[in-house]
C-alpha cells in the first residue's frame, strides 16, 4: 500500500508502533503538550509519545475531576485509570492551563503504574529571565531522562535530535503547503491523521514516509475541493470527526491551528551553539498556543495562516471548560471577523449532539 495509507493505518492503530519500539526493551515517555521538549527525550534514546484522547464518554474520571475540568483532560485521566497508558515509562506534563495543572495533581496522586513529571515552563515568551528559569528546569528534566534511560545525553545527541525533529516539522510544513492551492492536494481530515501519526511514531521512520507521501500527493486534486475554504482553530483536536463533518457539509478544510498539527510544525529551532538553549528558545520564542503571552504573536501567527491559505471562514472549536480558548474566542472574535466570518462551536471533547453541530456547520457554510 502507498505511504499515505501506511500512515493512516498507523494513526488508526498506533499499538503496532509501540510494540515494535518496546520489543527490544526501549522506553517510551508520554507527554501531553508541544511545549514538552521531545528532543531531550529522544536524545536519551527513548520515544516521546503524545497522548491523545478517545471519543468515548467519561466514566471513572468523573469521581476524581469535577465535571468542570475540560473533558479532554478528564478523558486522558479516564484512559490512564483504565491502564490504557501503562505502556508508558513515565508521563510528562507542562504548565499550560489550569486543567493540565490539575491533571498533574491527579495523576501524581492516583496513577501509581506510571510516574508523572511536570516541566515548569514560563507562560511569558521572549523574556530572558524566563529563559534562564526554563534552562534550570530543562537541566533537571535532562537528568531525569538520563536516569530513566541510563544513557548520558551528549550535546551531539541533542543536536542530532533537534535536526531530526526539525526535519519532521519541515516535511509536515511542506505537505501542509499543498493545501494552499486553489484545489488542495490533501484533505484536512487526511492531513490531521498524517500529522498525528508522525507525531507519535519514531521520527526516523516518519520522515521517510512523509517524503514519499509528498511525492504521492503533490499532483493530486482532492474532489469537491472548490468549496468554501475553512480554517479550524481552538482547543485540542485529536480526532478528525469534526473536520470530516465540515467536509461532508461541503466545506474544504484548508488550514487548522491545533497542537496536533500546524502548531506542532509551523516554526523550527533556531541555530544555537548550545543545544539546551536552542531548545529553550524554541519553546519560549514560539507563541502559538492559547496560554502564552504576549498574545500579539499568536494573533500574528493566526493571521499569517488565514492569509497564506486564503481562508473564507473560520470555525473556532471550543471544548467546554477549556479556559485558555474559551476566553480567547471571546477576545479575538472581533479581530478574526475582520479577516473572515467566524463560527464558534462550543461542545464537549466527545462531540455529543452531533446533529445540532451539523446544522450549525451547514448553516455557516451556506452563509459563506
Amino acid at each position, binding site marked *: 500500500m502507498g505511504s499515505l495509507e501506511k500512515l493512516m493505518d498507523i494513526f488508526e492503530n498506533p499499538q503496532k508502533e509501540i510494540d515494535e519500539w518496546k520489543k527490544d526493551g526501549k522506553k517510551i515517555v508520554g507527554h501531553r503538550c508541544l511545549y514538552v521538549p521531545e528532543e531531550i527525550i529522544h536524545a536519551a534514546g527513548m520515544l516521546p509519545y503524545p497522548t491523545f484522547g478517545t471519543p468515548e464518554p467519561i466514566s471513572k474520571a468523573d469521581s476524581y475531576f469535577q465535571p468542570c475540568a475540560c473533558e479532554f483532560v478528564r478523558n486522558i485521566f479516564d484512559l490512564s485509570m483504565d491502564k490504557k497508558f501503562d505502556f508508558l515509562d513515565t508521563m510528562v506534563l507542562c504548565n499550560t492551563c489550569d486543567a493540565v495543572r490539575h491533571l498533574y495533581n491527579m495523576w501524581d496522586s492516583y496513577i501509581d503504574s506510571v510516574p508523572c513529571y511536570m516541566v515548569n515552563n514560563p507562560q511569558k515568551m521572549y523574556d530572558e529571565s524566563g529563559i534562564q528559569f526554563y534552562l534550570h528546569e530543562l537541566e533537571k528534566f535532562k537528568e531525569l531522562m538520563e536516569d530513566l534511560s541510563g544513557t548520558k545525553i551528549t550535546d551531539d545527541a541533542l543536536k542530532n535530535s533537534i535536526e531530526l525533529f526539525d526535519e519532521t516539522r519541515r516535511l509536515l510544513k511542506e505537505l501542509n503547503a499543498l493545501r494552499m492551492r486553489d484545489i488542495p492536494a490533501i484533505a484536512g481530515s487526511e492531513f490531521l491523521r498524517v500529522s498525528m501519526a508522525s507525531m507519535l511514531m519514531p521520527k526516523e521512520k516518519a520522515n521517510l514516509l512523509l517524503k514519499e507521501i509528498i511525492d504521492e500527493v503533490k499532483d493530486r486534486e482532492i474532489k469537491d475541493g472548490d468549496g468554501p475554504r475553512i480554517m479550524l482553530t481552538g482547543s485540542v483536536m485529536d480526532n478528525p470527526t469534526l473536520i470530516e463533518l465540515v467536509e461532508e457539509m461541503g466545506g474544504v478544510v484548508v488550514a487548522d491551528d491545533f497542537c496536533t498539527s500546524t502548531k506542532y510544525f509551523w516554526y523550527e529551532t533556531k541555530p544555537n551553539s548550545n543545544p539546551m538553549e536552542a531548545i529553550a528558545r524554541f519553546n519560549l520564542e514560539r507563541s502559538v498556543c492559547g496560554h502564552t503571552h504576549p498574545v500579539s504573536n499568536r494573533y500574528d501567527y493566526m493571521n499569517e495562516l488565514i492569509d497564506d491559505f486564503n481562508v473564507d471562514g473560520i470555525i473556532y472549536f471550543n471544548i467546554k471548560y477549556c479556559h485558555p480558548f474559551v476566553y480567547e474566542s471571546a477576545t479575538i472574535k472581533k479581530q478574526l471577523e475582520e479577516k473572515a*466570518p467566524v463560527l464558534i462551536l462550543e461542545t464537549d471533547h466527545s462531540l455529543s*449532539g452531533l*446533529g*445540532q453541530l451539523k*446544522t*450549525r456547520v*451547514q*448553516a455557516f457554510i*451556506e*452563509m459563506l
Partner: protein
Amino acid sequence: MITAGVDVGSLTGKSLILKDNEILGWSIIPTGPDSSETAQETMDKTLKEAGVSFDDLDFIVSTGYGRVVVPFSNKNITEITCHAKGANWFFPSVRLILDMGGQDCKAIRCDENGKVTNFAMNDKCAAGAGRSMEIMSELLDTPLNDMGGFSLDIQKKLAPLSSTCVVFARTEVLGYLHEGTHKNDILAGACEALADRVYTLLKRVGIEGDFVISGGIAKNVGVVKRIEEKVGLKANICFEPQIVGALGAAVFAREILEKKAKKKKG
C-alpha cells in the same frame, strides 16, 4: 417556473409552492413519526391546493431538521438560511430574525438580500423551545392558540417558574394550581421564562434593524409581546409564521434554477 419548499420540523411539516414570485399554495401538518412520509403528505396537500401536479415542479428544496430524509427534494438547506430568506421575502427590510420552533430557537442576522451574516442557536434542552409550551398547554389544558392571550391577562401576579426543567416544572405548576393560583398567572410565568431564554440568543447576535419572528411560537402573543418589550422593537409577523422556512426554501429553489439558466446562456 414553479418551485417548492418543504420544511420538516420537529413538530410540524410544512410545504409551499411558488410560481415565479407568487405563492400558489401551502400546507401545515403535524410531523408524523416518519419524516419522509410527513414530507410526502404535506407536499400532496399543497399540490392539491395549488392545483398543480408533482411533475410541474421544476425544483424542490427541503429544510428543517428532517431535511435530509425528504426523498423527492433536489437539495437540502438548513432552516437557518431558509428562515432568513423567507423573512426577507415578506419584509425586505428585515435584518434580525427569531425563529422559534418546537425543538430549538434561532436568532439570525441577515443582509438586504436575506443572506445570513450571523446566527445563534439554543442548546439541547427543551426549556426554551416550543415543546415546553405544548407541555404547559397540556398541563393547564389550554389550547396553544389561547395560551398567549391568557398569559397577558394576569389576575394576581406572575407566578415565576424556578425549575429550568420542563419536566420538573410540571410539579411546580401542579403545586401552583393546588394553591389556587390562576391559570393565567402560571402561563405568564411560562411565557416569561421562554422569552427570557430567547432574549439572550438575540443579544448574542446583536439587536438592530427590522425584526421578524417566525416559527410556530410567533403565534403566541404572550411570548411575542414579552420579547418585544425586552428588545424594544416591534416584531413583524407574517400571516402564517410557520411557513416562513418552507417559503425560503422555495425561493432558494427558484434562485438556483435562475442561476443554472444564466450559466447556460453565458
